[in-house]
């Protein structure tokens, strides 16, 4: 219980830091974001748009602490302001749809990579010096050396453009309207393959190496030796005795990976024009849409904090040692 309380306090602090950072960033930049947008857009924005933005930021002639509390109050009420690039759509509306796509892409890629990677790691450690163990690590080091967004570019170029196997952009065909029909779900899955695969290829390496190394030290534990001595089937020793215990560190890593799911797929989304948070974030940056940009940053941060909290709760259930501490 104590452990959970301490973690809660920590997450609250982290949330406060990112909110405060968000508050001070537009005030740190030279000039006023409102003027910057005005100058850049050359009269393409209405003055009321800028006023809405100033209001959302609490940018006014009030003293700084007053502005700060106004800003906090706005956030508490879930008011992230109005998107400048899509005036007068509230930022939260844009975030809601793109959040779904990011989650779909990130979760799919991470779960697939986690399963394949850990399985390869288990097999590699079990048959040390075997085919999987000797071929995988060097291959993974090699593949892991490439920037993942460049692999995505390469996949898009060859499998999307040159050979035409997969669609070039977006999350579903533009001539189907979103619904739960088989056709639409199929289209979504088809569009998901290439972005997800490009993430999986890069992510697998970490899981394999992590699992392999923990597995190797777990395998020298007495209880594994005991299980073998009892004459239990190999498969049972491998999965129920060794792998089960070796999985814990990787599970923690899975929690940390949640940050990558939500924020790290940013470049992949940009390459495939996948309409998730990352793609929207870049769009917001290019359009100088500060409210949208900061709203997305906050949502990503809060989600990561929330996800880590869930992992902590899970960890307490899985590892009795944490409960005592």
């Amino acid at each position, binding site marked *: 219980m104590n452990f959970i309380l301490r973690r809660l306090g920590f997450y609250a*602090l*982290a949330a406060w830091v990112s909110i405060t950072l968000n508050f001070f960033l537009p005030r740190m930049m030279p000039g006023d974001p409102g003027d910057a947008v005005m100058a850049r857009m050359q009269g393409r924005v209405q003055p009321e748009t800028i006023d809405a933005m100033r209001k959302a930021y609490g940018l006014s002639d009030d003293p700084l602490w007053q502005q700060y509390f106004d800003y906090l109050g706005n956030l508490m009420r879930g008011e992230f302001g109005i998107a400048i690039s899509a005036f007068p759509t509230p930022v939260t509306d844009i975030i809601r749809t793109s959040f779904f796509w990011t989650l779909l892409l990130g979760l799919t890629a991470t779960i697939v990579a986690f399963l394949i990677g850990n399985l390869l790691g288990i097999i590699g450690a079990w048959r040390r010096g075997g085919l999987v163990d000797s071929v995988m690590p060097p291959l993974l*080091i090699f593949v892991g050396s490439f*920037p993942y967004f460049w692999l995505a570019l*390469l996949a898009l170029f060859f499998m999307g453009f040159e050979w035409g196997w997969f669609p070039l952009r977006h999350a579903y065909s533009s001539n189907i309207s979103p619904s739960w029909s088989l056709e639409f779900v199929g289209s979504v899955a088809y569009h998901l393959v290439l972005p997800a695969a490009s993430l999986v290829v890069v992510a697998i390496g970490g899981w394999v190496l992590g699992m392999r190394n923990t597995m190797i030290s777990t395998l*020298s534990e007495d209880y594994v030796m005991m299980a073998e001595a009892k004459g239990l089937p190999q498969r049972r020793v491998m999965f129920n005795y060794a792998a089960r215990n070796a999985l814990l560190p990787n599970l923690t890593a899975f929690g940390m990976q949640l940050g990558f799911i939500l924020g790290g797929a940013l*470049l992949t989304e940009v390459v495939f024009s996948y309409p998730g948070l990352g793609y929207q*974030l870049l769009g917001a940056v*290019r359009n100088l849409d500060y409210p949208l940009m900061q709203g997305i*940053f906050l949502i990503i941060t809060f989600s990561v904090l929330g996800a880590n909290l869930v992992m902590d709760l899970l960890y307490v259930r899985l590892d009795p040692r944490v409960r005592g501490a």
Partner: protein
Amino acid sequence: MSSTISTVESAGPTGDELVQQEHSRAGRIFRSGLLGLILANRKATIGASILLIFILVGAFAPAIAPYDPDEFVARPHQAPSLDHWFGTTGSGEDVFSQTVWGTRISLGTGLIVGVAVTVIGALVGMTAGYFRGRIDDVLSLVTNVFLIIPSLPLLVVLAAFLPAGFWTIVLVLTVTSWAYGARVLRSQTLSLREKDYVSSAVVSGESSFRIIFAEILPNMLSIVVAGMFGAVTYAIGAQAGLEFLGLGNPSSTSWGTNLYWAQNNAGLLTGAWWTFVPAGLCIAFVAFSMSMINYAIDEVTNPRLRSQRDTNTLLRTSNRKLGKSRATPVLRPTSGD
């Protein structure tokens, strides 16, 4: 010398102590002869050679590049030929010259950020680990907050607000990536601090500063160095990513801006693969050389991995197979026991 393969259970020093001893051993090697260490290990030789080649290319870029990287020299989007080894870009620049010049900024950013991140990480982590108590609580808290805030979105937001330029990228990358090293070095310091030689240094009245940097630091040099290579790799990749998004300075020439222009000039959708392949390969080569060096450091300092490698070599040369036992194999001279 003939050897037998036997397995040891935890007799004698425990694994952690062994690792500790090995780390101090590596510390001595680092101080005595870096070159010897590099030449003795195949992975280190490969890694260091690739890295050296890139450093030389970056240093002598004006002499190596046949054209000005920003000059219109031929028709746009020409395939690689004898005149233009890597072809030309969408605005008719020579891709080979751009790649050579790009080495400077990309590698430079990576190295500067790598060193900065390591220094900050070492200062924060070692201070926290050495003084413990209140100081540790505060520093660990700061470190963990930096660790948990997702770095890529933060990078994008920071880069969007600050004026574009080389030093902005350096600053932003350093701010977002020092925390990991600090955490690793803190836990290492915590365990080294319990060693007898630290206690004796404390008793003999040495200053904390001296104990941290002259007693403890040399004994965890391998981890610090490995962390630095990791940070350099991360920085090069992240810088390329930021510039690919157009958040760097698009008018300078680096591997990241090359990728940015390749995508923006539709190099991708006109079949001009040569506009984006070289930059990616260069990043991959540098990252690969860093991992090689890191694996070599790991091999030299981790007795488990070293005995594993020696065993594999022995098995290969003597055509024998390892038994079913799962314990870490140990090579021992037959005459010895």
